[in-house]
Every structure is written in structure tokens, then in C-alpha cells.
């Protein structure tokens, strides 16, 4: 169904319900929560300004994700890269006994190309389905599934696990 713009109240509801998830992903991109909050605020403000251009080709949330990620990436570009390589150093230890598997998965994420990293974040932090991720990143659904499978394959090569990955 095609829409003629997004309603302000829908954007506000989305903001109130999903703010923490937006900040979580933005922090994964930017490293710091204050910068992440700023990116979310700017992303939603852009969504408000451009809400008349929302056509309903995909979910509203995916459309807003695009704005928020734009804002986060622009922020990172302006202020110098603080990607996951350095990001790891900025984190507080989540446990006094870090697990080896954690290190491997973090290292795997750190070496992913930008697009794959964003795809992983949207899949596992934001719980978006393939179609929504495709809308958020402005790619084909097939590209999302292929990207995630490639990422999983890369991880499988670095750690061994007997379980299956759903296509």
C-alpha cells in the first residue's frame, strides 16, 4: 500500500518505542553513547523534515533507520573514524572473564566491510527482517540475505560450530 507521507504521531510513537534500539545501533557505529544519542536525534529530525517524501514502499521504521544511520555515519566522518577497532578499547569490560568466543566474534565484526557490518547490526541489534534491512540500506532483499550468509560463512571459518544457519 502506498502512503503519501509519514504522520508526525507515527514518528513520535516509533521514537518512544524504539529509541533505545536506535541508540544501541548508533553506538555500535560511533562508539560513544552521547554521540549515538545525537545521531538518533538528528536522524529523527531529518525524518520529520522529510516525512512528506515517505511513500510507504517499505516499513516506516526502516525508512527512519536510513536517516539515523546517515546521521551516525556523517558524524563519524566529520569527527574522524572511531570504528570497532578502536571501539573495543573504548568499551568498559562487560565481564571480568571474557570468553574466547566473544573475542573472535568481535574481531570478525571488526574486519567486516562497512555494509556487512551495518547489515549485522540491523539484523541482531534492531531485529529487522531482511526486507526492512533492504529498505534501510537501500539495497535488494537478495543482497541482504547474501550479505548475511557471506558474513556467517566468514565467521564459521574463524570459529567452528555444528549448528545450521538459516538461509
Amino acid at each position, binding site marked *: 500500500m502506498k502512503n503519501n507521507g509519514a504522520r508526525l504521531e507515527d514518528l513520535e510513537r516509533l521514537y518512544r518505542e524504539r529509541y533505545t534500539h536506535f541508540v*544501541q545501533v548508533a553506538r555500535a557505529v560511533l562508539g560513544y553513547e552521547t554521540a549515538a544519542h545525537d545521531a538518533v536525534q538528528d536522524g529523527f*529530525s531529518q525524518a520529520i523534515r522529510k516525512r512528506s517524501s515517505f511513500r510507504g514502499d517499505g516499513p516506516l521504521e526502516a525508512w527512519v533507520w536510513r536517516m539515523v544511520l*546517515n546521521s551516525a*555515519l556523517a558524524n563519524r566522518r566529520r569527527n574522524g573514524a572511531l570504528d570497532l577497532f578502536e571501539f573495543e578499547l573504548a568499551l568498559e569490560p562487560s565481564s571480568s572473564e571474557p570468553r574466547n568466543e566473544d*573475542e573472535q566474534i568481535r574481531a570478525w565484526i571488526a574486519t567486516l566491510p*562497512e555494509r556487512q557490518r551495518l547489515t549485522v547490526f540491523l539484523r541482531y541489534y534492531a531485529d529487522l527482517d531482511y526486507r526492512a534491512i533492504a529498505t534501510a540500506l537501500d*539495497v535488494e532483499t537478495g543482497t541482504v*540475505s547474501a550479505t548475511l550468509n557471506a558474513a556467517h560463512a566468514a565467521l564459521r571459518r574463524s570459529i567452528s560450530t555444528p*549448528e545450521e544457519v538459516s*538461509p
Partner: protein
Amino acid sequence: MTGFEETIKSVLVRTVPLPAGVGRDWEDVLARSATSTKTARTRRLVYSVAFAAVLAIVLATTPLGAMIARGFGDFSGWLSGSTGHPASTGEQQTFAHEYKNSWIRFPKTPALRSLIRVRRDGVAYELFGFRAGDAFCLRLVASSTSRSTYTSCAPKSDLVARRTPVLPLTVDAPIVDRVKTGRRVFFVRRAGVTFGITSDGVAAVRASAQSSDLKGAVGGDSFLIINPRAASGAHVSSIKASDTNGDEVVVPFTRSFFDTPVAGTSPTLPGPTKAERPVEHVRIGWIARREPRGTAVPPGIFRFRKSTFRRLLAPDPGGVARVLVYVDRNDELCFGLVLVHEASAGCAPLGSSPNWPYPFTLGEVSGGSGQYASVFGLADDVVARMTLFLADGESVAVPLKDNAFVIEAARSKYPFRLVAYDSAGIIVGVKTIQDPSIFRATARKSPPR
């Protein structure tokens, strides 16, 4: 979500936990949107000026670049296989071992040739070249506290076309050190590496990364640039090549992330824009009949769940890419791409979806530091041929066989336009493809006309 995916998710959440949400402030969002509206008009003017400047540069440099390119010689060293020196026995054996385990079974392991060896800041870099089918490939090995390898290939057609004296294959790929502090292990980026193929007459290749001028090593008809400032976010923003007379040409490439204007890219994409007789489904008779076309899928190539039918197709027998097709347990048609060392696939909604507007499925694999994209998919029975139109004005026939297609194209030539024709030459599908690996930031927007 499978257990494997749950593991990934739990590690991600442990790394960046869900915040408490105390900063939630909708009034602040509204205030920012009001401020942004006031500045939007000024920004549009800036875009107009910037766009005019970029267009002027393209118009000024493109004919000049073509003229200079003639003075840079050609890629005969690569095409004749005489470039560089034979690799050491150890490297050839390591390579052969990896190649033996690759998905694509060539009759024999290609001969690896050593092209450039340099040492910088405690890291030893060696660049190798080899040919696989119709592809010309470079393989970089960087050794420090850990060993990193990158392999990238260019299709033969790009060397033969000789539109530029340098073909970058990888830009700013990260070289990572493993650093252990107490019980924790960190992966720290040491440098970025950029490498590619050069024509015979190239004497020097330089790059800029913010204010740094990076001089590349040139040898064996290839170049290698090490960017130690990549660790602090200074990424390669321009590449230039010069011949022995000092004549210089700008080399088009795509940055490893974010967007940037690319020299030589036309803002107007050639080729038809609309289908004359749109076909809006993907129906493939031989798959419905379960005909064993192509080849069987080698064991271990992909972790299928339950599939009732699976085949491996080679639209371009000389290329290194294969198209995987299978029917899953829900009787959905799935497709994917198989490259030398990796396979990826997924099940996208196909002809059964009422909103599917093309006579082909489409996937793309590109991104990161690699400079080539793979465009692949399955076409409906009605499709007799396909053409890919590129932003630099070039158009190439897309290899299509058994309804599968795959083509490699330089990302610096995005956006692409994929056009499908039926047997009478009537256009049955048109799809414009943007670079999926570049997240289109706000500045990417087209200027007002």
C-alpha cells in the same frame, strides 16, 4: 533465529548493551527539525555549486585522461603473463593448498608471481599476481603479529579496454595487529593497503589521504600503497598515476566506505529507462521440471537446510564466479553467488510475489575495500539476453546461460543499469542499481536541477 545466530546476537548485546533510554527527548527532536528547515535552502545552493564544480572537472579531465592514457602503454605484461617473478616455493604451496580447497575447481592451481615486496613499520608486505580463467588477480600477504591476505581480481575485458592506465583492485583494506593486554585481546588497525594493476608505462602511483601524500611502490606492472594513517581515520581520497615524463592522470576508484564524487562518472546513466513490454515474474521451466543443468554442487560448498533440488551454473565459463540455484524445503527458489573461496546465497521473494516488478532476481556482492562488484541472479524464460549499462557510458553484454547471469564490474562505474531483452529484442525489464556497499549519506543527494 538459529542457535548460531543467537550466539552472534548475545555477543553483540554484551558488547553494546541496550541503553537505559534516559536521554529520550522528543521535544529536542522537534526543535532540531525546525532548525534544520531554516538551513535547508542554503544547503541546496551549496550542492548546486559543488555539483557544477564536479561536472566541470569531469568535462575537463576526461578527454585529457584518455589522451594521456595512450602514453602509458598497455597491459601487455599482464596479458602475456610475463609480469613479476615466480613466487617462492613456500608461498606457492600455501596458495595451492588454499586453492585446492576453493569452490571453483580449475584444472590446476594458477602460477603465483611475486610482484612487489616491501617492509614498513614492522610489517612485511608481498604482492602476488595470478590469472584464474579470464580474471587477473592480485593477492596481498601482510605479515606481522598476524597474517592478513587479500585477493582481488579484474576481468580481462577491463584490461583489454584500457580506459585507464591503472586499475585499483583494493583500496584501504585494513591491516590488523593482534594486541594482548592482560587477559584481553584487541585487534588494532595498523595501516590500510591499496593495490592494483598498472599498464606497462606507469612510472609512479601516488595517493592522498587527508593531508598526507602517499607514494606507492610500483613494480611487476602493479602498485602497492601503504597508508599508515588509515588507523586514525585518514582514508585514501585520490589516486594519481604518472608516466616517465611526469604526465599525470587521475585514477577513478570507489572509497572503501562513505560516498565521494568519483572522477569520470557521468551523472547521466545511459541505456533504456523503461521496459517496452514489462515482464513481472521469474519463471524457469527447467528448474520446474528439475532438469539437471549445469553441474552438481560440490559437497561442502554451502550449508543447505532441506533442499529438494540444487545445481551450480556457470553463465561465464571463463570467469571465477558461479551461480548457485536451489529449491528450499518450502519449495521456494533460492539463488546465490559462489566465488573462489566463499559462497553466499539467500531466498528472496520471486515470481510469486505480486510486487515483483522484474523478469529477473538480483543480488550484488561488493563492498569494503574491493573495487569490483558481482551482479548476479536468475532470469525468466522470456529473457534472451541482458546488457549492463555503466555510468561511464560503457555497455557490456551480461553472460547468461541456463537462466543464470553473473558479471563483474568496477564499482567506480556505479550506478549500473541492467536491461533484459526478449528474443525479439524487446525490452522486458530495466533495473537501475546503486552501489549497495556505499551507504548513501545525505551529501550524496542529487542537486536540484
